[in-house]
């Protein structure tokens, strides 16, 4: 049966595949963490770009403003240079005074304070504004100067800015600004040199810089450093040929790059710009460390946020996985609980706090078998299946179990099965508590105890019978004695002369005493204290023999029909007992037909059973009475008129005789009693008459010997021999008598003839006796040889072959006693 197939069976659903949840949760968490890592990385890289862009912006602005300033500075100085070169061309013999005057006329900003020198093609200084303290100007030669050699080699007519040099005239440091002096024929005519203070270039440098280790420089394309500002310190000159910028300007005249500075080893982010045509590069650089430091705090904040978020995700998914696993465990335990509940043989239902059924197991449905309509309307059918007589009791039980009693109690009641039959159930209610100990629901189980209940019922009857047996066994003897005295005296009284009233009273007393006699007999029969003495009986012959008695008992108003069997029917029963049974049944039938009626008695035989039917047309019995009909002391007759033992006795007798008894009854139609007894095929054999032996004188015996022989002469002889030995010898003429004697008295030895008339021969007797009395020593005797007599070789008992002498007998007895080894009889 599949519990989920029925609506009430699927208590727990939708919880399957919980195992996959763990993987899903893990995967989602991993995805979220990856996304967070990606976002953080993106943000970090964005921040870095922003910082570098910011640095580039600042540096490029610095570079640009430097360019503007330097261009205007150089342009104004170049203008002076060009005017003086023209003047010098017109007047090569210009004196120092003329030159100074001319310079003043040009109204150059005093701050610039340029020093002008004219140099001949051979490098001699022709004229200069500088005052030389080292001797005449003509002695000076600057042909070794880099600017001189460069202009001499070149053809262009451009302003050249050279590396700072120490003036040979004034001894001051200055930056040489030079132009070529070209002859009319185009040949090199010398150089005009303007030397300015390098400080002219430094002025704006002191203002802006970006971060620590920021650096700015003006570099000549010839590979020198015009000026460098590094971390607030200004330096002039120096070889710059190794600078990265020379590689960069080949690609572009404006741009930026990152490189480690050769001078101080600091990695910088550099912006540069080439200033044409002056052959200069302006450079502004920020240390990468400083740039990165500017967004490092932000970056740290990002990482901390991301780490916290990751931690949150991991813990959340962990908790989620834990709860899924727990739920899965719960589901599994609930599932096994569910399976268990479907597996148990009990009917199980759960109740809410009001005692209403909220769920039932499949077995309950199978057992009660409600219709689809009933099932559609909830669980009312569960309660409806309880027997109407038990409804109130069950309701009270449920109410008590729900409200007051916390222990598990049981209630026994009848419950309707799908086929309409009511069967006994034992019900228990268990409270299901949650962790706080609050009632959540109630589980009610119902166990089928029908068989037990029925067995108890039968046991009750059996017990009643047994106690009656014990009672009668002990009392019947005394009771019979009392009755004998009462009846005997009453009988003697009848011979006396009594008054009419005295006679009447005596009759009443006598009839009461007679009833007492009947009661004791019934009790004895019922208790089976009176062993039946079964014999093979022609059943119909017996019926016919007592027919007049039966008819008399029935009375005039009952018509009696007797249907004989087609064949002779023999059964093995106690005749007297069977007579009593018939009489009992006839009297019952008569009492059931107070206004007269019809009784039919018929006998037939089939399937190895004789079937005796006694049917009356009487009042019949309702089922409740029929159920208890064979129960001892159960009677529907008036008090005093019946003992309640009649049918009980009949049932007991039939059962003891190996038969069965059935009763069919319907109110208003009558009752039919059926008695079936096992058929016996053999014809009855008359039991041999009791032989009357002549008693032999002898000493008091110390053994008790039972001698069984249908030939009295020999038996008496053997008895005499036994008595001579001091034994008690008892004679029995047949096997049946021998068994009766064995039942009433203990014997030491059974000596039996083999060939005997009757239903049992000596071997049969020996077998029966040894089975019943294992201590009994058995001896066989026969006129035939062992094999002929027994017709078989496996008989275990010793055989005395007739004729045998007293010595043979004594020897056989002695051997038997020796072998059995039993103690002398006390």
């Amino acid at each position, binding site marked *: 049966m599949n519990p989920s197939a029925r609506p009430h069976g699927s208590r727990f659903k939708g919880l399957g595949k919980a195992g996959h949840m763990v993987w899903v949760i893990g995967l989602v968490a991993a995805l979220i963490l990856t996304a967070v890592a990606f976002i953080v990385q993106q943000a970090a890289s964005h921040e870095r770009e922003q910082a570098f862009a910011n640095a580039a912006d600042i540096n490029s602005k610095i570079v640009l403003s430097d360019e503007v300033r330097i261009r205007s500075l150089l342009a104004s100085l170049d203008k002076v240079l060009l005017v003086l070169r023209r003047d010098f061309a017109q007047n090569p013999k210009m004196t120092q005074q003329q030159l100074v005057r001319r310079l003043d006329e040009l109204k150059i900003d005093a701050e610039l304070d340029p020093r002008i020198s004219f140099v001949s093609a051979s490098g001699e200084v022709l004229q200069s504004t500088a005052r030389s303290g080292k001797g005449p100007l003509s002695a000076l030669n600057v042909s070794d100067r880099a600017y001189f050699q460069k202009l001499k080699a070149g053809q262009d007519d451009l302003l050249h800015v050279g590396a700072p040099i120490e003036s040979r005239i004034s001894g001051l440091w200055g930056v040489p600004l030079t132009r070529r002096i070209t002859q009319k024929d185009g040949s090199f005519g010398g150089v005009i040199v303007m030397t300015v203070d390098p400080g002219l270039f430094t002025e704006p440098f002191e203002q802006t810089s970006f971060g620590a280790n920021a650096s700015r420089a003006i570099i000549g394309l010839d590979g020198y450093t015009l000026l460098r500002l590094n971390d607030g310190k200004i330096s002039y000159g120096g070889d710059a040929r190794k600078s990265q910028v020379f590689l960069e300007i080949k690609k572009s005249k404006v741009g930026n790059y990152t490189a480690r500075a050769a001078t101080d080893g600091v990695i910088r982010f550099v912006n540069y710009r080439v200033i044409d045509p002056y052959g200069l590069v302006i450079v502004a650089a920020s240390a990468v460390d400083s740039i990165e430091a500017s967004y490092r705090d932000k970056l740290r904040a990002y990482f901390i946020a991301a780490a916290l978020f990751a931690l949150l995700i991991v813990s959340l998914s962990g908790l989620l996985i834990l709860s899924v696993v727990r739920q899965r465990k719960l589901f599994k335990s609930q599932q096994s609980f569910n399976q268990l509940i479907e597996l148990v043989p009990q009917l199980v239902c759960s109740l809410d706090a009001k005692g209403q059924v909220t769920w039932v197991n499949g077995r309950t449905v199978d057992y009660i078998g409600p219709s689809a309509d009933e099932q559609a309307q909830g669980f009312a059918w569960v309660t409806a299946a309880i027997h109407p007589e038990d409804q109130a009791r069950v309701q009270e039980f449920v109410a008590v179990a729900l409200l007051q009693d916390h222990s598990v109690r049981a209630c026994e009641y009848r419950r309707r099965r799908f086929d309409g039959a009511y069967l006994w159930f034992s019900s228990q209610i268990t409270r299901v508590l949650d962790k706080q100990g609050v009632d959540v629901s109630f589980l009610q189980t119902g166990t089928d105890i029908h068989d037990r209940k029925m067995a108890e019922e039968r046991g009750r009857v059996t017990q009643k019978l047994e106690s009656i047996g014990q009672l009668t066994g002990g009392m019947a003897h005394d009771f019979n004695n009392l009755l004998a005295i009462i009846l*005997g005296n009453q*009988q003697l009284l009848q011979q006396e002369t009594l008054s009419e009233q005295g006679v009447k009273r005596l009759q009443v007393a006598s009839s009461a005493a007679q009833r007492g006699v009947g009661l004791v007999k019934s009790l004895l029969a019922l208790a089976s204290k009176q062993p039946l*003495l079964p014999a093979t009986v022609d059943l119909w012959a017996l019926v016919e023999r007592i027919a007049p008695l039966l008819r008399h008992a029935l009375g005039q108003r009952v018509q009696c029909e007797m249907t004989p069997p087609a064949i002779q029917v023999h059964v093995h029963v106690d005749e007297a007992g069977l007579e009593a049974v018939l009489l009992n049944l006839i009297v019952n039938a008569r009492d059931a037909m107070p206004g007269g009626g019809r009784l039919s008695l018929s006998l037939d035989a089939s399937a190895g059973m004789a079937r005796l039917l006694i049917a009356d047309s009487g009042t019949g019995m309702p089922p409740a009475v029929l159920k208890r009909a064979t129960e001892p002391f159960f009677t529907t007759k008036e008090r005093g008129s019946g003992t309640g033992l009649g049918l009980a006795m009949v049932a007991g007798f039939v059962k003891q005789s190996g038969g069965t008894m059935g009763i069919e009854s319907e109110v208003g139609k009558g009752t039919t009693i059926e008695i079936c007894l096992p058929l016996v095929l053999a014809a009855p054999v008359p039991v041999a008459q009791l032989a009357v032996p002549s008693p032999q004188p002898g000493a008091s015996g110390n053994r008790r010997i039972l001698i069984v022989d249908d030939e009295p002469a020999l038996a008496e002889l053997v008895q005499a021999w036994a008595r001579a030995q001091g034994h008690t010898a008892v004679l029995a003429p047949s096997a049946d008598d021998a068994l*009766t004697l064995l*039942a009433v008295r203990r014997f030491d030895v059974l000596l039996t003839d083999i060939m005997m008339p009757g239903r049992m021969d000596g071997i049969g007797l020996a077998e029966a006796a040894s089975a019943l009395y294992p201590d009994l020593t058995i001896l066989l005797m026969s006129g035939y040889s062992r094999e002929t007599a027994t017709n078989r070789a496996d008989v275990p008992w010793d055989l005395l072959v007739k004729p045998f002498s007293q010595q043979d007998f004594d020897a056989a007895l002695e051997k038997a006693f020796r072998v059995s080894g039993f103690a002398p009889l006390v």
Partner: protein
Amino acid sequence: MSGACFRGFDMMDARPDPLRFAVVEDDPFMAELVRDMLSSAGVAVEVFALGAELLQCAHLRAFKAILLDLSLPDIDGFDLMDKLAEDSIGMSVVLMSGHDLATLRGAKLYGNGIGLNMRGALTKPFTRDELLAALGLAV
């Protein structure tokens, strides 16, 4: 007490009386009843309350028959029959008992088997006629 009474009777007349019966019955009322029943048929009765009293009776063999209750306080009915079978040849015995029929029938068989002349077995309660019939007396 009844024993004492009949001992005097014994001494007066020791000859076997063809109609002198012994009754072995411990219940005095039952004993009286049997005596009355038999007296009405003209039979003399000597009552013994115990089996030992009967066995000690000097003129035991003089009794025409012995009415024997199977249940006696001092001796088992079967043992008493054994003793009777040893002492007397062909003693007539009638058994009386409130026991069930099977026991009574077995006891009768037993008596026959040891050589007693079992004249009958009466289940209590019995009528006077049944008693007389068992003793072979005319009703």
